[in-house]
């Protein structure tokens, strides 16, 4: 007996939006069961990872600052993926955003003025967009696959950080540790809620998501992106240039990743260190898909991922779950989401072998 997947003529709209929820619920149930079976407190793990970060108000600030960069990068990636442009290198563009912003912060060191942060933001966006332009050129001019180029450029960007913090930008007072000096006051993001660590980047992330949602649903640009992605032939026939769309997708996703890098380096880090790339650019890929490539969905998906990060650490301190557990839960979520997607778009059909039956 064999099975094959058959495309559904019309996937259910309701199911498209239910699968992410189902993926999270399934992850909680099956993850809890697996951890119980191998001898941990499985239900406790689910509670600590998924619920405690929400119920403990101390943790909300952590969720906010962890989700903010994921939202900004995830929204940009959602735009690119809608256009069928597979930018996998958001991590590198995030790094370049942080590097360019650091450049501004170090040149204006000791200067006071409200314009320092906006200038850093512009530099960050420019840095991320410029770095994303490299795979865009290679794709539009030479037809090079952007998945490989954008991914590989990530590693190059990390080497650039190592070089900068070891030699030209090294903190003169840092005991030789490769890091820049701490930015001066004007180049650090202010905290918006006194007594917490919630910085300006959190509301900016929400505003960015709303703006992109508006542009994608209400403007010609958004329409063009969606058409080129969904029906390239129709788009060409309709006069939309494919190359132009590729460029736009890369510049938007790269620029937003760069903005996230700027907010991160000016907010939580306040200096450039070798540990600056922490994988936000890669996690944002899960976020974009979990959010259904919809800017508003991305907000929720980013919060879910932030919950698993913060909860994963909680579970270590409270019930002694190993660090890898949070990663396993995140991976299960993506797995169930992708599996659910298949079942929404295709149905499983039993294949009956004609010849075998004829012989019988």
């Amino acid at each position: 007996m064999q099975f094959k997947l058959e495309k559904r003529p019309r996937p259910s709209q309701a199911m498209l939006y239910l699968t992410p929820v189902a993926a999270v619920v399934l992850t909680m149930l099956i993850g809890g069961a697996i951890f119980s079976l191998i001898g941990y407190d499985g239900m406790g793990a689910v509670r600590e990872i998924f619920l405690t970060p929400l119920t403990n108000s101390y943790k909300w600030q952590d969720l906010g600052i962890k989700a903010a960069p994921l939202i900004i990068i995830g929204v940009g990636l959602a735009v690119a993926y809608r256009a069928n442009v597979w930018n996998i290198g958001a991590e590198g563009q995030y790094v370049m955003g942080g590097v360019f912003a650091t450049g501004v912060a170090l040149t204006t060191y000791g200067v006071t003025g409200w314009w320092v942060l906006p200038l850093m933001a512009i530099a960050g966006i420019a840095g991320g967009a410029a770095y994303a332009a490299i795979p865009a050129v290679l794709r539009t001019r030479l037809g090079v696959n952007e998945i490989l180029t954008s991914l590989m450029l990530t590693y190059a960007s990390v080497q650039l950080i190592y070089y900068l913090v070891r030699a030209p930008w090294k903190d003169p007072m840092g005991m030789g540790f490769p890091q820049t000096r701490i930015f001066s006051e004007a180049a650090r993001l202010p905290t918006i809620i006194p007594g917490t660590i919630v910085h300006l980047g959190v509301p900016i992330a929400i505003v960015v998501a709303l703006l992109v949602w508006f542009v994608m649903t209400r403007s010609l640009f958004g329409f063009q992106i969606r058409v080129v992605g969904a029906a390239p032939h129709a788009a060409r026939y309709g006069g939309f240039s494919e190359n132009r769309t590729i460029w736009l997708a890369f510049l938007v996703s790269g620029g937003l990743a760069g903005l996230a890098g700027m907010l991160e380096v000016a907010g939580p880090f306040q200096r450039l260190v070798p540990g600056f790339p922490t994988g936000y650019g890669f996690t944002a890929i899960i976020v974009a898909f979990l959010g259904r490539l919809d800017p508003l969905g991305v907000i929720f998906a980013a919060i879910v991922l932030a919950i698993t990060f913060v909860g994963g650490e909680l579970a270590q301190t409270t019930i002694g779950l190993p660090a890898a557990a949070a990663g396993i839960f995140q991976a299960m979520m993506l797995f169930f989401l992708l599996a659910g997607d298949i079942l929404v778009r295709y149905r499983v059909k039993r294949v009956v072998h004609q010849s075998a039956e004829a012989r019988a």
Partner: protein
Amino acid sequence: MMKFNRRNVLVLGGAAAALPLVGGRALAQDGPLKVGFMYIGTINDNGWNYAHNQGRIYLEEQLGDAVETTYVENVPEGPDSERVLRELAQSGHKLIFATSFGYGDYVLKVAQQFPDVKFEHATGYQRSDNVATYNARFYEGRAVCGTIAGHMSKTGKGGYIGSFPIPEVVMGINAFALAARKVNPDFTMTPVYISTWNDPAREADAARAMVDQGIDIIAQHTDGPAALQVAEERGIVGGFGQGADMSAFAPNAQLTSIIDNWGPHYVEAAQAVIDGTWTSGDRWPGLKEGEVQIGAYNEKIPEDVVAAAEAVKNGQIDGSLHIFTGPINDHTGAERVAAGETMTDEQLLTMDWYVEGVIPPA
């Protein structure tokens, strides 16, 4: 499952062992002291983090019911560490060990918010009223390894896989080179920095590149046994365990190992917090105190070389030998330490130059 069982058994065993001691202590009203540990890698790295975790287990064994420990693994040196530190402090941990250099800024920041919690930062240099630093004189162990390298290397070329060029690492490279060149004046050291404490793939890549350049002894200041595994695979003279005995990964290549023994310090610090006598400060013990230990010597090392290594070890224990005693020239040949002079601890902790024989990385 394994971890829980092992821990439970240890807690029970430790509790039983400590029973006779508990009577003397007045902590019934407070409950056990909660002690938190923050590690940069996993406790299974068989090196740095493994050694710190052994120290944590030793603390539980020694103080039994008087302490309750928690650890968080894989915490990157950045804002994530700040969140974990705050989480530990908020959940009632009164003594927190942050065991990697890059946690420094965040320890100070969180310590300010929790003045009644004591923090101890391994290998750091920034202190405050409730932040102490502690370290071990690894360079003394490096001098023993360097002596063996000077005798055993056939090509006279050693390699050193480092994380970051901070004084801690630079002084290890220098101690190794000084000791090796006392045996073989032509010995050279090539350091390579890989910008992380734990990345087995990068450590192995660096080790392979070294072997290709004719280096036949590799030491490392990173957390795991990857470089030793390459040494084993390529059949070069060998390397050294760092943090813990790594002979299981490289039975032929591991010449000896530097073993970090943090347990006694953890017991001492926890006891001081329980007794209310804890004060901030810097502790830097070494071979003499047993915080740095030299593991078993590989059977392939000739007896006279073992004797030479033991002499260097014992000289540092009885104080007759300090590896940073002049004359010492830097890598350009200029004299840095005059004959008969010994570098002070302060000079060592800010060391940013290489001794003669080290080929500085570009």
